[in-house]
């Protein structure tokens, strides 16, 4: 391997934010509400909304689809718990823990940097804190969740993570991000 093939040094505004486990849940609204309550949320999330109660994050992916992130609890403990709450509801619950990885991008100018590859309007007036969306970063599908005015959580399929990071780092040469 030549020197040029090694990944560029990870900048301060980019970090790993992997939860202990991840699930995709699909079903009708009563099933989604039952799962939300089993995870300790007062209600299901609305369109393009994400919520975090410290233990779990619940992200809206589509009218019938949610992404569940468990910060501490592994899939082996969590899966039966959600499945119990969903007994009697038609649903699909898929463990996607190892399909994707999570990144936290955080810093002054991070919105403009993400907009180098994401076609959605990420201005805070259009994409508020705790808004989430499945979208694209250039050619790679991502799930984007705004955690603060200058902070985003990104879910990306494992094999695209390197592509995503290299694109961001390249783009940051023209649009410097100052680490918060």
């Amino acid at each position, binding site marked *: 391997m030549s020197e040029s093939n090694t990944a560029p040094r990870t900048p301060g505004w980019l970090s790993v934010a992997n939860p202990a486990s991840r699930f995709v849940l699909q079903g009708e609204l009563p099933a989604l509400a039952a799962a939300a309550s089993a995870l300790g949320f007062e209600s299901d999330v609305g369109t*393009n909304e994400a919520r975090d109660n410290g233990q779990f994050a619940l992200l809206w992916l*589509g009218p019938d689809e949610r992404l569940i992130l468990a910060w501490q609890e592994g899939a082996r403990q969590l899966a039966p718990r959600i499945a119990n709450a969903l007994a009697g509801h038609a649903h699909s619950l898929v463990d996607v823990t190892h399909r994707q990885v999570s990144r936290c991008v955080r810093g002054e100018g991070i919105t403009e940097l993400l907009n180098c590859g994401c076609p*959605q309007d990420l201005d805070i007036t259009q994409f508020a804190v705790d808004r989430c969306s*499945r979208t*694209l970063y250039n050619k790679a599908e991502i799930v984007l969740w705004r955690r603060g005015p200058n902070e985003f959580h990104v879910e990306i399929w494992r094999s695209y993570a390197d592509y995503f990071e290299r694109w961001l780092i390249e783009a940051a040469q023209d649009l410097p991000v100052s680490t918060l």
Partner: protein
Amino acid sequence: MLLIHCPHCGTRPELEFSYGGEAHIARPADPSQVSDDDWASYLYLRSNTKGVHAERWRHVRGCGRFFNALRDTTTDRILVTYKAGEKPPGEAR
């Protein structure tokens, strides 16, 4: 870039969508009773409209749902979008 209004999520960039062909084409209820010509026409023949065309789109890099749009094929302007299963707005067209 074109903006397309997803009936579930709102207005999003065209890049998040994929095209799904002409809308409102009903699959024959009992294919074994259909003649080869009728089956071929169900599979392959489309209206190729010049003007307002009802077509399927999928918000594939978003909510994942299929929906329908009325698009003017001469101007590429999308006039209206509506959920799958609904009739086109202003049926009279």
